[in-house]
């Protein structure tokens, strides 16, 4: 039977990396698929934007997990490596504290050596910790389910300095200090982002999203940009399709939301169709922190022999990460001294990331400039060339900006907060009350960042294809 132009096998709401990967697999399996994206480009948090001569990566700035975990298999399946060059920045991460500096290298043995030189008293513990991580799958224990990441670090190390140095990048990539972060998330993040981090596609992060969109279209998929979904159409038992904000309707057996979980259910589907227990569960869930991002375009490119472009540079000026989290969570920006800096691979721009609370639209309308200038002032203390006199362009993305472009609840950086009580997300990929409604992306998974959402995009597709073939 031929389908009419408004009929699809599956409609995906949102062209984030999770939605795109899911769409690619469904289209490759022979399904007729539509992706509707509100923004004028695909990618979600993995987009880039241009201002004058500068290209900035909007939020995602590199990724990890090509060697460990399922990312390599998925990129092979979709033949991504044949179309774009993805290289690994080495060192991927550099931690700078008031009294030391230590780097994560592509070769783990070098990373171990770097840490041993920086923390000679922890020599043996460092080796033990990294070996534990390398064999994480065998070492991960059911007993970790109630623990936080601090408990793991305490079982290896005694000095608070090394514990903070090792956890600050994990904090930056999860929005939680080790005392709040689930041991399980912390370990997974550490392994994927730090033992194997710093990957970057030639041409910028947008390239990755664009290639996925291309593969999706080559396999017969249809991508609508600047198309906001207003409603998921349902008869209370099954999904029937979606309605766009221009009231155009598209019908399908499956609707996959790559959009935020609360919005998907409460706004797009409608409260009346949600199972009470499920509604109760999602109402109590806590989202991850958002982030304030400073984008700086430079008059002269940075040629600093010390910091390679592309490395994530973590300024850990305050070893007390609980304190740092408290200030971030409450928006006490004056007191925040820990931040992450990233020099763009073309050396022409620099971005800074600071964990921040959502607040609200009005707050950021009133305070965005002030917070931006506050951080520009703080940057003066960073001993790298002379950024301040070299600024041609400055701009910031506030948590509200992130919300506006991606609709992520409270501008959350990583979906739900990775606290131990949120270790399990029951029925978040597929609920048990509306047939055909699936979710994908960072609101359904524990994996943070690009590796996490890529895997969940694949996993969601696998479930749908199984069901479709029946």
């Amino acid at each position: 039977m031929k389908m009419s132009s408004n009929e699809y096998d599956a409609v995906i709401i949102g062209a984030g990396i999770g939605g795109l990967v899911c769409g690619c697999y469904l289209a490759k399996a022979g399904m007729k698929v539509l992706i509707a994206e509100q923004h004028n480009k695909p990618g979600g948090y993995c987009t880039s934007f241009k201002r004058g001569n500068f290209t900035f990566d909007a939020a995602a700035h590199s990724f990890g997990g090509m060697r460990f975990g399922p990312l390599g298999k998925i990129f092979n399946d979709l033949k991504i490596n044949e179309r774009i060059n993805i290289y690994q920045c080495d060192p991927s991460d550099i931690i700078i504290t008031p009294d030391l500096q230590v780097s994560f290298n592509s070769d783990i043995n070098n990373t171990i050596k770097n840490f041993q030189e920086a923390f000679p008293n922890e020599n043996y513990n460092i080796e033990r910790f990294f070996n534990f991580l390398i064999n994480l799958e065998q070492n991960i224990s059911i007993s970790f389910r109630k623990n936080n990441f601090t408990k793991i670090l305490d079982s290896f190390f005694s000095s608070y300095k090394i514990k903070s140095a090792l956890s600050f990048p994990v904090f930056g990539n999860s929005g939680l200090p080790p005392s709040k972060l689930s041991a399980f998330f912390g370990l997974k993040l550490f392994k994927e982002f730090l033992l194997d981090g710093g990957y970057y596609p030639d041409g910028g992060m947008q390239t990755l999203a664009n290639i996925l969109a291309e593969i999706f279209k080559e396999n017969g998929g249809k991508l609508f940009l600047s198309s906001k979904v207003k409603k998921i159409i349902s008869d209370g038992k099954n999904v029937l399709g979606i309605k766009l904000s221009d009231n155009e309707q598209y019908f399908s057996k499956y609707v996959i939301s790559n959009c935020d979980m609360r919005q998907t259910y409460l706004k797009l589907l409608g409260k009346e169709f949600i199972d009470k227990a499920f509604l109760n569960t999602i109402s109590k869930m806590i989202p991850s922190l958002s982030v304030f991002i400073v984008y700086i375009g430079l008059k002269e490119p940075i040629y600093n022999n010390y910091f390679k472009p592309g490395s994530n540079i973590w300024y850990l000026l305050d070893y007390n990460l609980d304190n740092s989290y408290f200030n971030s969570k409450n928006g006490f920006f004056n007191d925040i001294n820990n931040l992450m800096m990233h020099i763009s691979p073309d050396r022409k721009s620099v971005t800074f990331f600071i964990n921040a609370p959502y607040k609200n639209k009005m707050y950021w309308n009133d305070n965005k400039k002030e917070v931006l200038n506050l951080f520009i002032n703080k940057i003066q203390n960073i001993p790298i060339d002379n950024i301040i006199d070299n600024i041609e362009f400055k701009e910031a993305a506030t948590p509200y900006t992130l919300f506006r472009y991606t609709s992520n609840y409270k501008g959350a950086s990583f979906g739900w907060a990775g606290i131990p009580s949120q270790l399990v997300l029951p029925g978040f990929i597929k609920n048990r009350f509306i047939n055909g409604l699936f979710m994908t992306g960072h609101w359904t998974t524990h994996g943070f960042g690009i590796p996490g959402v890529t895997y969940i995009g694949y996993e969601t597709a696998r479930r749908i294809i199984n069901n479709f073939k029946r």
Partner: protein
Amino acid sequence: MIDKKVLENEIKEIISDVSGFDLEEIKPETNLTNELEIDSIKAIEITVAIEKKYKISVRDEDVPKIVTLTDAVELVYGMLNQKGN
């Protein structure tokens, strides 16, 4: 007292949610690791979901003993019985 069949269906739903396999594919004697691709991480998810649902605390050393759905049902059934007494 909870009925064993009801318990089996509820635990089957949890395993289905975590593994992505449909209810019909999960038989009482299906090997969870080999046939449903449940790795150590998914095993943690299933354990936590069961603990939350039945308000019990599974002993760490009991988890590796769960090889099939029946093993999980027997373990939870036993714990609920003890709790009831």
